[in-house]
């Protein structure tokens, strides 16, 4: 059997979900045996998201144009997309700026009011992606095949979700161990 083409993506999140993924410890060897990591900020050095990915874990909410672009590309090229962690599932902490009336007050606060005097709002489309007006969970933009909540989901929860997938089965997402937010 061909190896599963496996990817992980990091959008607007703190990378905690990826750290929790690394906490899988020796189970990572089992994963490595079953999959080819074709794209991942923690397990490969490939810059472009490839075609025909079987499974992808997406960490983070959609907060800027780059997040949005990558998510759309990921969805197009991935068979089974997993919304990975609370930022992806609920928009979580990144979305707390949504209650503050758009991006302007937030940018002003960060780059002008709190800066040492030479502050300016970074604006170079080639370097800094523009913030979107509203931060959104990923399933509000694309279809999601599995939700894996938690901030971050514990390594055990990640394992319980991934292990069945490696055998071509769907995990059972039920109960406090598998679906609690936070």
């Amino acid at each position, binding site marked *: 059997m061909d190896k599963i083409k496996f990817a992980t993506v990091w959008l607007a999140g703190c990378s905690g979900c990826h750290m929790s993924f690394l906490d899988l410890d020796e189970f990572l060897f089992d994963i490595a045996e079953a999959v080819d990591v074709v794209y991942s900020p923690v397990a490969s050095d490939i810059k472009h998201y490839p075609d025909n990915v079987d499974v992808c874990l997406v960490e983070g909410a959609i907060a800027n144009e780059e997040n949005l672009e990558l998510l759309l590309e990921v969805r197009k090229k991935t068979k089974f997309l997993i919304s990975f962690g609370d930022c992806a599932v609920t928009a979580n902490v990144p979305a707390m700026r949504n209650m503050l009336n758009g991006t302007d007050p937030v940018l002003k606060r960060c780059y002008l009011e709190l800066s040492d005097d030479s502050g300016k709002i970074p604006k170079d489309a080639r370097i800094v992606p523009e913030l979107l007006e509203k931060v959104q969970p990923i399933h509000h933009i694309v279809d999601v095949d599995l939700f894996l909540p938690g901030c971050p989901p514990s390594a055990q929860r990640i394992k319980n979700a991934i292990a069945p997938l490696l055998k071509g089965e769907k995990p059972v997402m*039920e109960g406090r161990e598998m679906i609690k937010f936070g």
Partner: protein
Amino acid sequence: MSVHTLKIDGVDVAVESGTSILKAAQEAGVRIPTLCHLEGVSDVGACRLCLVEIKGNPNLVPSCITEVQEGMEVSTQTETLQEYRKMIVELLFAEGNHVCAICVANNNCELQDVAIEVGMDHTRFNYRFPEREVDLSHPQFGIDHNRCILCTRCVRVCAEIETAHVWNVAFRGAAAKIVSGLNQPWGEVDACTSCGKCVDACPTGSIFRKGSTTAEMVKDRSKVEFLSNAREKHQWTK
């Protein structure tokens, strides 16, 4: 007092007239999820999580405020009910600002508990992201309206058990809000005895004790039930 006989999920149950369907179900060992219901204070039917089906009635009814009737046939676990319950919980999450990861009540929250119970792993509704306040004017407690689900448990426990009547619901529709006194900062309301009953009654992280950090809060919701039993039935021990 007369006794009514009814069927709950096909099982015969006999209870006193005037009993709610929810109570009757509890006596029969049938679990119906609830949020606004709190043992020891009156029921108001605010959250609609306890909906049940009654044979011959096309409407779903809230079991906490519907009294049993002779010969009633109640279903509590149909597919329709399960779907609606899930939707209600999803709407509650989409309606306020629930960021569990940084909440004092994380792991000790009844909203989380029912989300798990109904199998909610995401909400399909758009989040509203309302602008809401936090009132920290009380020396011991705080209220964060971002996490309030308007169950009015605080209102009822303060009015009915502490009889201080500090809380009320003000405004209409999406602007509805729990207020202290005459919409004053909580710390300025003289009627508050600082008894902390509302803190224990609140099912979410909305009313909290100051100084508890994220996920550190522990609530004792049975306190209210104990107090009302002590007063009404003279049971002074737990």
